[in-house]
């Protein structure tokens, strides 16, 4: 069981982020919860790529000539996903700033002026 501990962490983080998304009332905390969900996703992809005993997939540093490397594709995908997450987070924080400037409050209940 301890071997699959990373997957457990992924599941817990994802659910924690999701709970924060739906139950938090503060816009800033909602943004943080979204970042937690993104972190869980990135963690999941990167754990999929681990091969026990593997070395870093860079030939400059491979050293002893071992060709047993960890899987490189998840690292590349995570790199892309992290930058995308960074972009969305930046935009989300800007929205929070603009909303605060507009309403003078970060509470969802003060902001919800739209009729369902």
């Amino acid at each position, binding site marked *: 069981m301890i*071997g*699959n*501990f*990373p*997957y*457990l962490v*992924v*599941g817990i983080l*994802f*659910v924690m982020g*999701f*709970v924060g998304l*739906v*139950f938090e009332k503060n816009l800033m905390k909602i943004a943080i919860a979204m970042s937690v969900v993104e972190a869980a996703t990135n963690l999941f992809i990167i*754990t*999929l*790529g*681990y*091969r*026990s005993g593997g070395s870093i*997939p*860079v*030939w*400059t540093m491979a050293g002893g000539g071992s*060709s047993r*490397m960890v*899987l*490189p*594709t998840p*690292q*590349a995908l995570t*790199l*892309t996903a992290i*930058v*995308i997450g*960074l*972009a*969305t987070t*930046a*935009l989300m924080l*800007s*929205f929070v700033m*603009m909303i605060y400037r507009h309403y003078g409050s970060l509470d969802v209940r003060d902001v919800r002026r739209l009729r369902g």
Partner: protein
Amino acid sequence: MKARIFFLISILLVGGLLWTGLQAVHPFGIPGETPMDDYFIANAQGEAAANNVVTSIVFDYRGFDTLGEGAVLFTAVISVAALFRKRGHN
């Protein structure tokens, strides 16, 4: 109140889904067949002429993804600039 129940149910569903799904994933550290990754490790130096396998994937094999990634960052920057733009810029 109704919304809270809906949210609770959806959280339970997501949690249950991930719980069952993650149990079926291969054990940590022991991936099964990896033809695509082995190809990258074997051929990154010959084809893309790069020592760093990850970079050769990011910029050569999946270079188009990276263009998309740059475009997302660009989009975010332009959106932020549009949000905080000055009035009467034109």
